[in-house]
């Protein structure tokens, strides 16, 4: 085998597994520095802290793979959480959860419509809806925190199945389901096709607008789901909830190797991206490093992950 071939193989291997390698290398380094890091409690802790962003990031993965971007999901988390709490005064919590998921789907459809049919660049379209939804949250809550007290509802965020907290189980189930949909269904295949080459997809007879909208619907439903977990975990919601979460969700997806230009990605790797981000915060807290430094480090991780891809792509 010739030199360049070896090189390109190495690059593609590193490209695929770099996130997993980075994850374990970092975990190893941190565990050497802080003995508590690898304790069962801490590991569970990291997973649980990742669950809300992780669920949201499943949706973001679909949106980005389809060539879109959705920065309204943080606001949508707040609205979903507020409605999940607020609706319970007039209906059973389970029904409230269903309604909230439908609301998430509806806002996702709006984002998809604005992007695909009206042709507003997705990041701007969702900038608009982000602001609108945040406004609705304030109108819905009147600007005050909402509280709820329901044992059934509280289970979603606080319950355990065996030794494992329920939010983690929910996260893992949704990741598995998301990965399955991405790899094994027509919707998943078409999303990749559209993000990979929209015109070629259109000329292959794919209803591009419809499927692009569906990716936003997936994003909206997952944001609603993360809002439900959020509300259940805290049993309260402030109108400020979820601010900046959209950025962590997008960061998880791109650290996990989802191509920013669309077409490629994996829900499982997005999960690892989300865990990696949480792990950094967790480790810094254990070591006792200032919060401000954490931001800088997280930013560097994002740049390193995306920079690696962009650089190699540009060089062919």
């Amino acid at each position, binding site marked *: 085998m010739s030199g360049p071939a070896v090189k390109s193989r190495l690059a593609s291997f590193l490209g695929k597994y770099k996130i997993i390698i980075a994850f374990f290398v970092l975990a190893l380094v941190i565990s050497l520095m802080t003995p508590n890091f690898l304790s069962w409690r801490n590991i569970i802790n990291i997973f649980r802290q990742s669950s809300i962003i992780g669920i949201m990031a499943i949706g973001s993965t679909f949106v980005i793979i389809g060539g879109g971007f959705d920065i309204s999901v943080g606001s949508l988390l707040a609205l979903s959480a507020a409605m999940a709490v607020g609706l319970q005064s007039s209906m059973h919590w389970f029904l409230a959860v269903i309604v909230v998921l439908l609301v998430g789907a509806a806002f996702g459809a709006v984002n998809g419509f604005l992007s695909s049919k009206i042709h507003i660049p997705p990041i701007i379209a969702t900038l608009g809806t982000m602001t609108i939804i945040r406004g609705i949250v304030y109108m819905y809550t009147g600007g005050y925190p909402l509280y709820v007290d329901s044992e059934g509802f509280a289970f979603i965020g606080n319950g355990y199945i065996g030794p494992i907290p329920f939010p983690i189980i929910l996260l893992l189930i949704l990741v598995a389901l998301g990965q399955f949909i991405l790899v094994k*269904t027509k919707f998943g295949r078409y999303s990749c096709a559209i993000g990979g080459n929209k015109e070629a997809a*259109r000329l*292959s007879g794919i209803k591009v607008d419809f499927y692009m909208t569906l990716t936003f619907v997936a994003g909206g439903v997952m944001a609603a789901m993360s809002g439900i977990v959020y509300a259940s975990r805290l049993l309260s919601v402030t109108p400020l909830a979820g601010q900046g979460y959209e950025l962590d969700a997008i960061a998880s997806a791109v650290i996990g190797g989802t191509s920013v230009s669309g077409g490629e990605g994996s829900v499982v790797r997005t999960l690892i991206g989300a865990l990696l981000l949480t792990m950094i915060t967790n480790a810094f807290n254990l070591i006792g490093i200032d919060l401000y430094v954490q931001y800088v480090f997280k930013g560097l991780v994002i740049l390193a992950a995306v920079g690696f891809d962009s650089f190699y792509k540009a060089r062919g």
Partner: protein
Amino acid sequence: MNRDNVGSRRILEVKEISKSFPGVQALDRVDMDVREGEVHALLGENGSGKSTLTKCIVGAYQKDSGTILYDGKETSFSSPTESFRKGISVIYQERSLIPKFTVEQNIFLGDEMQVSGLLSEKNMRKRFHSLCESYGFDLSPDEKIFRLGVAQQKVVEIMKALSRNSRVVIMDEPTASLSKEESDHLFKIISQLKSKGISILYITHILEEVFRITDRITVLRDGRKVSTLNTAETDREEIVNLMVGEVFHDIEDISSSANYDLPPVISVKNVQKLPRVRDISFEVYPGEVLGITGLTGSGKTELARAIFGAEKADSGEITVEGKRVNLSSPVDAINAGIALIPEDRKSDGLIMLFEVFKNITLPAMGDFTVTPGLILTKREYVKANEYRERLNIRLASIHQQTKFLSGGNQQKVVIAKWLLTSPKLLIMDEATQGIDVKAKSEIYSIVRELAENGFSVIFISSEVPEVQRVSDRILVIADGEVMGEFKRGARQGEILKKALSGKQEHLDNQVVS
């Protein structure tokens, strides 16, 4: 046009230039020279090497061998930017101005005049007016480019070239999208440039223009220079013969499988898609390969896209197997049994990131899924492998990423993906562009085999020999209209003359009307 002030000094000289690409000798020891104040036509069919030659001159390509003398000195430009700075500029067919900038901003882009680090509007305005004066341009410096017509945009590009003191201006089909009046205006400007001693290398397909404005003509064919002639001492007949060459490709004696007794598979009536497709009608019969040829810009691709619903036609009637169909999207066309292999496989035909099998099964996904949309991956593999063998697609595995395949194999993947939809009509637009000779001949065999199996094919290409080779019948298109129809076995010269004459006749008609 006055031919008096052509100097004898050679401003640009090209000696024994060769350039090859994998599988193609694009230029083979080409010599030519351009004199000061001369308008020199560069003629040749598509693929004859015109654009490769100009690209080698300005440094967009690096020549394999040979020398280029500019102003008497041997030079080798590393990029078009460098040659532009040194005084050789190219006016490309596609526009290269920034639409939202003003005329003046575009002219001085990359060479802004500054006074102590700040842009000097005053100096640029002065320079702008002096350019206008000395060449007789009449343009407002503050007009935004997107508000200008195509012709005026060409003028801006020319002004940009002049602002850098260009001594050689290469024009690539400058009148391609100009009206007759606009072309006349351009010719006046060319005459102005000439009188100031600026040389012009003029690339075109339109012979009328060549005889009107050029001093000498160089004809290329298959990467070789055929001849350089004084325009005053030759005529259309001679030029066409030089371009076509007296080559008689022996056309294999294939047995036509076209069945003209059956009703046509598709009947296209008065299809219009402006600006390129004016009014086109034809039929394709079962088992028939209909070749469509014409020059670049004649409307072939736009016709194909209109039939496939990629761009909805303005008007016209399309009937598939006797039923009138409304093709407003590719989905409609696919449902009607039409498939399109697009001109640009990279941007329109394939998803390069995808593994090969995913590209192959994409349009026929319905055959590989069960409700509610679950993909039957095993079935995909089987089908993909079946077509890989059938079309002899050379790859390590169907799981290879498509972008790593050679051009020819990529094209076969595109063919495979459409065969999987079992189309009644397959439209192939420049299907052999940029692929090696072996893959080309394999594609010709595939086309003939399809026809033998009763499929219909529309084979679109600007290369006449390959159209002759695969087609049962040939339509020649020029300026968005059908100019002629030929039976199999027609001579290349006749077909090409029809294609070249299109614009000419059209211009004449305009004059009359």
